């Protein structure tokens, strides 16, 4: 069994987690830049973080046979100060040359503010100018439905093919809109605030397996880096075919991510 966890924050996880993920069949992860639980005080803090994502984590993952790719941005929780956010965004182009950077992400909205939207639009333009894939963070809880619609409107105003954009953290009230507008959809399996493996399997049953993946978004909060293999088991328990399970946990991520020429896997490993 092999799978890809296409959204996990390994900087917040221990090396033991890499080992357990490898033992569970993980062959690749992609790690979007995100909020560290506190606001960084300078753009230099982000420069260090981007180096960690592009230099250190790929080496740590490789010790367990896992390929590590990343996405760069200023996340929406730290993007509410446009002047500060622009200092960070200005750092990104030099890192886009790195071999493991797949695109811009996870960009989006947090509290659906005008300031956040300004920086979201500027980062969409950055992706467009540099022909990058986009990974989108949608807001949590009561802000998700409104934020998802605002984000999709901002993305649709660009010239980026929606097939090159994945909108993450979808739930039952947003997944249909995301898929209907041509975007890819990501389901985040999280013990408390997002979706369980059971609900993710329900969504696959209701909305199909086209342009959809699942991920753990494992981070510093209560989260589970083995959430994807647990969802595979849940689908297996229900009697779904191995072909369908592989499709949503391996083939679909590979199809979307392979739109970046930097995404390469040795499937014989």
């Amino acid at each position, binding site marked *: 069994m092999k799978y890809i966890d296409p959204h996990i924050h390994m900087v917040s996880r221990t090396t033991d987690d890499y080992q357990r993920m490898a033992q569970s069949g993980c062959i690749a992860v992609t790690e979007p830049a995100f909020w560290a639980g506190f606001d960084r005080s300078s753009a230099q803090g982000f420069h260090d973080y981007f180096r960690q994502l592009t230099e250190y984590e790929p080496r740590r993952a490789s010790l367990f046979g896992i390929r590590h790719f990343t996405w760069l941005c200023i996340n929406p*929780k730290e993007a*509410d100060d446009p002047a500060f956010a622009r200092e960070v965004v200005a750092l990104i182009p030099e890192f886009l040359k790195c071999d493991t950077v797949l695109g811009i992400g996870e960009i989006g909205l*947090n*509290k*659906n*503010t*005008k*300031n*956040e*939207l300004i920086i979201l639009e500027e980062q969409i333009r950055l992706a467009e100018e540099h022909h990058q894939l986009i990974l989108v963070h949608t*807001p*949590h*809880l*009561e*802000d*998700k*439905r*409104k934020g998802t619609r*605002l984000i999709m409107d901002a993305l649709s105003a660009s010239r980026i093919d929606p097939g090159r954009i994945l909108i993450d953290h979808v*739930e*039952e*009230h947003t997944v*249909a809109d995301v898929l209907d507008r041509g975007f890819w959809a990501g389901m985040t399996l999280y013990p408390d605030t997002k979706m369980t493996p*059971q*609900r993710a399997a*329900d969504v696959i*049953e*209701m*909305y199909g397996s086209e342009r959809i993946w699942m991920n753990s978004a494992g981070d510093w909060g209560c989260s589970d880096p083995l959430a994807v293999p647990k969802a595979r088991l849940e689908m297996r*328990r*229900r*009697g*779904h075919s191995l072909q369908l399970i592989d499709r949503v946990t391996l083939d679909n991520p590979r199809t979307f991510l392979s739109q970046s020429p930097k995404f390469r896997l040795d499937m014989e490993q």
Partner: protein
Amino acid sequence: MKDVKQTCPMTREQIVGQYFLEHRARLLDIAAFLDRLDRAAASAAPDFRELALLEALRIVADGGPHRTARVLNLLSDLTTEMPQSAHGMKGALGAVKPAAGAAT
């Protein structure tokens, strides 16, 4: 919403057999949470989240389709206004807080 009848590969009997106990436990958790609220010192008015949860339970029990999406919509901000800044409101609460002075 999409018609999703007969999209689960399991029979109703199989679903009950596989999932009843864990959902029985979750239901009891909700009941215990409401009991805990009853045992707490009274406040001037129920918290908006408590009221939202009770309203969500009505949806859960109404027998209609797409309960999950309808509960999520009930707990969603349906306004279109955008504040300029998120200053002082980074987190989310899980239900929509009524504007000051609004009826709950």
